[in-house]
Structures are given as C-alpha cells and as structure tokens.
C-alpha cells in the first residue's frame, strides 16, 4: 500500500521546518535553565532530598550566585576546594554552607575536579544503553506495532503489579502515567510513591522499581519489555537524565507540548527540550512527541495538517539535537469522530502519509480518546478500527486504546481486553495493508494531498513570522502564549561567556546551526 505523494512538497516542508527551527536552536545555544543545570548535578551523582523534602539538585542550583556560568563550574570549584563528592557538596549546601565563588578556582582545576564525575555519569548512561542493546539482542521484541499500555493507579506497587500483568498479556511497552500536573512542578519528586492522582509520580526510585520488575518479566517471557515515562514539563532535562540512568527506553518529549498545553514558557521549553534530546540521543531513548494533543482538544479532521506540521518541526528539532531518525517517535492519533461517514478513510490516509514521509521513524500512534464514551462496547470497536489502521500502515509504537477510556484510568482487566483487541485485529489482518493498493487519485490519496499541502501552508506561515511570534499569535492549537509569559520563565537565563556544561559538550548534537 503506497500513496503517491508530492516529494517536492515533502522536501519543501522539511526545509521550512529547518528554517523554523534554526533560529530557535541559535537562541537555545545562548541560554540555559534551572532544570538543565539540575540535570547536570544529577548526572554528576547528586540525588536525595533535604529535611523539607526539597531535592538536593534544586538546593544546589538555587544556591548558584551566577547561574549564567553553569552549575558545573561552581560544583567543580567546590570539589577542587574541598575534595568532596558532588553529593557531599550538595548536602553541605542544603545544610546552609555557601558555594565557593567559581572565579577563585582556576579553570583547569575545576574542570579536572569534575572530570571523573562527568565520566562516571556518561559511563552509567552508556552502560544502561549497552544493557538495553544486549537484552534486546537476547530477548527480541515481537514485531511492531509494539503494543504499549499505560498504568496509572497512583501507587507504584499497584502499577508494578499491573505492568507485569500487562506484559504477560502481550504488552511490549509500559508507560507509567504521571500524577496530575507533575509537569508543572519545578522539581522531581523523590522516592517510592503511593499517593499519585490520576497517575504515579515520576521519581528515580519509581523508575528503578518498575525497570527491575520489567527486567524480571522480560527474562521470564523471553522478550524485552520497554518502560517509558513523561519528560515534558518544567523538569524535562532532569527526567531525561534520570531516565538515562535508570534505563527507560522511551520518553514523552515534545518541542511545543508544554508551551501550548501546559502554559510553560516557550523559552524554557525550547532550551529544556534541546538538552533533553541530546541526552536521549546518547542514552538511546526513543522520544514520543505529542501531536495527539492537537486532536483531543479540537476537530481531528481540521487539525490533521497541524499534526503533520508539528511532526516536521519535532523532526527538525530532534535532528538539531543529534537524535537519529530511529529515535524519533513522532506522534499521531486516531481521533476522528467515529460517526463521520468514511472517517476511517481519512485516518488511513493520515497514518499512511506519516509512514511514508518519515519512513525510518518509529511512529507513535495514539488511540481514540475524545469520542470514547461510557458505551464500552462501541468503544471497543472504535479501538479495533484504530488497531486495524495501525497494522495496515505499519505504525511502530502503538498505544492500545481502552474500552473504558471515558470512565477511569485502566483496570487490570481493561488492559487485558485492550491487548487482546490489538492482538486479534493485528493478527487476523497482519498483511492486509501489504495486499492492497490505494486507488490512485481516489479519496484516500486526495485526503493525503490535502493534509500535506495544509501542513506546508502552516509551516510557510510560521517560517515567515518566526516560531515564537507564531506561537504568540495562536497559530498552534488556537492557543496564544506570550514569549515571556507562562510557567518557568524565571528559570531561563543567558549563558555567560564562561558558561560550562560538560555534558552538553560531550553529548554533541548540533547546538549551533549546521
């Protein structure tokens, strides 16, 4: 099954996206954020909380006299002066000790003092990646679409039970949904948690608990079960760092989600996103972008070009951060009104279009949610048509829809039914997409053309005005966000000339325009 698509339009869209993204990456190169710096401390081994439960990375970074120099410089200086470990420095700061003035310590000395910790951090990331590669080789996954389900009880131990059960029922990827509005917290909670709300806190310990349980079941099932969580939000870089250390396999990370749907400041988001993706690139973590959000809040037929435009933008940003295509889980969702006549054709057109435009990306396909109702029987059918579309168009990461989507976060039994649905449909129609062709010039192809040219239209408008202006004007998702408004703006700062971030340096990616 192939759409005949206008390759010039595709190439045009790609260069528009690059033109949109380049000035932002230039901007990013000159800035850092509190969360980027906290991520640096975490990668150097800082962890834990103080007496009031404030994470030590926050205490340490908040103590910086000149954040524009980067926390690494201050930390390196402290190490050089005191001979302590980064963790000991952070504890001392939390206990009220001031950080030394980095200017006091010679450049060479502070860099040398931090070196082993930076190397250790990178080594842990590389080791995690190596372990993943080895396990995947030994315990190969089933063929895609990779069945992805969420757990969201709020209690990491119930989540663990649910995750293991889901893996046994065929899940290949487990996402632990975060507690409501964690993305708005300007710190990463600590320890094993049992009191989440609509989800479970993303903490390093929770990551560890879940990864251990999934490793065990992976061995038992003879196939590697992946773990994922959400990076977007005020702590995107820290989550990316923690996920790298604890061997998560994927992360939600969108270049604009936080801005549009969580009112996080755009400068903050762009800077955080870039460093996160550099980390993801190094750790082999596949990002999942959030285009589905355009569809849950507005009409899915109208929003299709916006989804494609956003995919191009996410791709362009990802490339600039050094992320290979194989780690770009670009998003889309099956959200067209189930009662629209021939809506299925539009879904097939859009899914296949993305498949062809991003042939090497592990596309992430999200299930119907908005039009799901308390009618679980009909909901199960809508999910089936979604499953069919996914297998026909060779989507890669397949978030299984739940028949109870409109009712509650999934029950254990709901997840089993959802996985059964996907397994049944994808098996009975496994090769269907390969055994048919799309009628040339027919309605499916026409729709694909429409979506593509709509996306080109959006992108050229944005390229003209510049991305930040476009967001201010409400180009995306009908939401207007001022450049200096939104959450976390006070955590953005200009890098001084002497700014130093040894991880950014080591990670590479194309921080400055290629």
């Amino acid at each position, binding site marked *: 099954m192939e759409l005949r698509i206008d390759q010039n339009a595709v190439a045009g869209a790609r260069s528009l996206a690059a033109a949109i993204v380049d000035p932002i990456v230039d901007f990013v190169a000159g800035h850092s954020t509190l969360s980027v710096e906290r991520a640096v401390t975490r990668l150097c081994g800082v962890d834990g909380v103080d007496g009031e439960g404030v994470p030590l990375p926050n205490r340490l970074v908040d103590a910086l006299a000149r954040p524009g120099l980067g926390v690494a410089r201050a930390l390196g200086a402290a190490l050089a002066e005191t001979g302590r470990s980064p963790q000991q420095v952070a504890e001392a700061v939390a206990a009220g000790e001031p950080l030394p003035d980095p200017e006091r310590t010679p450049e060479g000395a502070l860099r040398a003092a931090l070196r082993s910790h930076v190397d250790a951090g990178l080594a842990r990331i590389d080791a995690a990646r190596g372990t993943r590669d080895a396990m995947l080789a030994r315990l190969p996954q089933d063929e895609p679409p990779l069945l992805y389900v969420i757990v969201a009880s709020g209690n990491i131990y119930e989540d663990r039970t649910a995750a293991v059960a889901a893996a046994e029922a065929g899940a290949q990827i487990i996402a632990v949904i975060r507690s*409501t*509005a964690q993305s708005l917290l300007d710190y990463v909670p600590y320890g094993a948690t049992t009191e989440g709300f609509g989800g479970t806190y993303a903490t390093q310990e929770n990551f560890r608990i879940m990864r251990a349980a999934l490793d065990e079941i992976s061995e038992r099932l003879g196939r590697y079960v992946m773990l994922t969580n959400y990076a977007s939000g005020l702590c995107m870089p820290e989550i990316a760092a923690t996920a790298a250390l604890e061997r998560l396999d994927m992360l939600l990370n969108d270049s604009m989600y936080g801005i549009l749907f969580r009112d996080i400041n755009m400068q903050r988001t762009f800077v955080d996103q870039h460093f996160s993706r550099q980390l993801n690139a190094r750790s082999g973590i596949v990002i999942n972008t959030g285009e589905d959000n355009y569809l849950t*809040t507005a009409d899915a037929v109208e929003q299709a070009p916006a989804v494609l435009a956003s995919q191009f933008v996410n791709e362009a940003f990802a490339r600039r951060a050094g992320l290979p295509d194989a780690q770009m889980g670009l998003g889309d969702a099956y959200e067209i009104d189930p009662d629209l006549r021939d809506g299925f054709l539009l879904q097939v057109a859009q899914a296949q279009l993305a498949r062809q435009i991003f042939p090497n990306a592990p596309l992430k396909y999200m299930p119907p949610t908005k039009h799901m109702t308390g009618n679980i029987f009909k909901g199960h059918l809508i999910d089936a048509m979604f499953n069919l579309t996914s297998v026909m168009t060779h989507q890669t990461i397949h978030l299984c829809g739940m028949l109870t989507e409109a009712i509650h976060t999934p*029950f*254990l*039994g709901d997840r089993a039914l959802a996985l059964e649905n996907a397994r049944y449909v994808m098996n009975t129609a496994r090769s269907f997409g390969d055994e048919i062709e799309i009628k040339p010039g027919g309605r499916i192809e026409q729709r694909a053309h429409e979506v593509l040219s709509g996306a080109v239209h959006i992108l050229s408008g944005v390229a003209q005005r510049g991305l930040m202006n476009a967001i201010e004007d409400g180009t995306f998702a009908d939401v207007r966000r001022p450049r200096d408004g939104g959450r976390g703006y006070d955590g953005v700062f200009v890098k001084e000339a002497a700014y130093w971030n040894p991880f950014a340096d080591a990670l590479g990616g194309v921080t400055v325009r290629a």
Partner: protein
Amino acid sequence: MVRPYGDTHDDGAVQLSFTLPIAWSEAADEAARQLAVKMGLTEVSVVEGRAIAAGFSFFVVYARTPAAIEVSTIRAPSAADAPLSMEQVDDLIAKRVGRKLKVAGACIGTDAHTVGIDAILNMKGYKGDYGLERYQGFEVFNLGSQISVEDLVRFARERDVDAILASQVVTQKGSDIANFTALAELLEAENVRERLLLIAGGPRVTNLLAAELGYDAGFGRGTLPSDVATFIARRLSDAASRR
C-alpha cells in the same frame, strides 16, 4: 416494578464482568459463580473465565437479578428540560431581566479538562449549538482550567456574577465531589451563595447529585449550551419578576 429485560419481560437478565486476583482453574470459575451468588444473583452462568496474567483471571457472567425498581417513584427531573432557542433565551432575558447576565465558568481544583466547559461557553458551542458567548443575553467569563475554589469565589464577588458554572471531569478518588463541596461551602461561608445561581457540570454529574451537593442544577454528558442557557434564563427571569 421494573426488572432488567433479557428476552422476556421480568427475566431480570444482567451481564457482569470482573477480574479476580487468582490463577485460573475450574475452581476459579466456581469462585466467580459463588461470588455472583453472594451478590444475590440467580441462574448464574460463568460463560467465560480465563487467565489474563499470572495470578489474575477475568470472567464474564450472565445471571438474573431478583432486584426490581418502582420507576414511578423515581424523581430525577432533568435540568435540561424543554430548551429554548438562542433567540428565545435572549428575548426572555431582554424582556424579563433587562440586562446582560454575567456568568463565570471554570474547571475547578486541579482539573484541566476544559473541553467540556468550553463547549458550553465558547462562541463555537457544541454539536452545532452555539455557546453562551454568542448570546446577546450573557456576559461570559471563562476562567479556564485548574482554578482554585478561592480564586473563583473571589472573582465572582468582584464581578458580582449572576451564575457560577463549575466543571469537574476527573472523578478519581472522589475529587469531583470534594471540589464541588468546597465551592458550595465557601460561597455559603462568604454569604454570596444566595446571590447567584450555582451550576455543576461534567460527564459524571447528574441534576440529582448536584442538588444533593447544594447546587441549583447539574448537567451531565451530552449537555448542549442551549440547555444551560435556558435554565439560567428561566431561573433568573423568574427571580427578577419576583423581586
């Protein structure tokens, strides 16, 4: 008296499904059967029982319930009765109230699901039915998502609004009830409850539930803006003419 209907009047047929945290075996099917019997069901047929994971089994059961309901005694008047058209609502307000009615809407607590309240308030409306912003008779303040009860009450007092429209979509762990209750109590505490119409909405809201919580009305799934507009206009024009 009314009973569930399978294929014959009063047969009491119901379908059930649930998960038990036990491994599957014939004994698990029997456990499911006995559980249904404990639930007061008769002619219990466990038509499906299977392992869905180690230590978990899923069951589908058909059975009969002896329970019956006297429907004639059930009082659950809908808040969405006999809706008027936008023109009729505007007319009613213009003639009987003589000024624009001020309504403030918000998703309260940590709830960020604005699509529902937006459907009621935004110009565009819902399913072809225009939202309150489009009406001549309303001045609409849509406060958006994650609005604390305190902020909403403060706003309502400052602007002297005629109606508060509170939305709750997340219901996990009873958060909706908690937030709705907090709002009603704060309005009482601040002595403004009597001055305004208090309206609850969301997919799990019913008019009955809203009444229990001390609200003037509750609107559930499928609500159209004109249902809400009609309710507000009728109530407040009645109140106006009574004064």
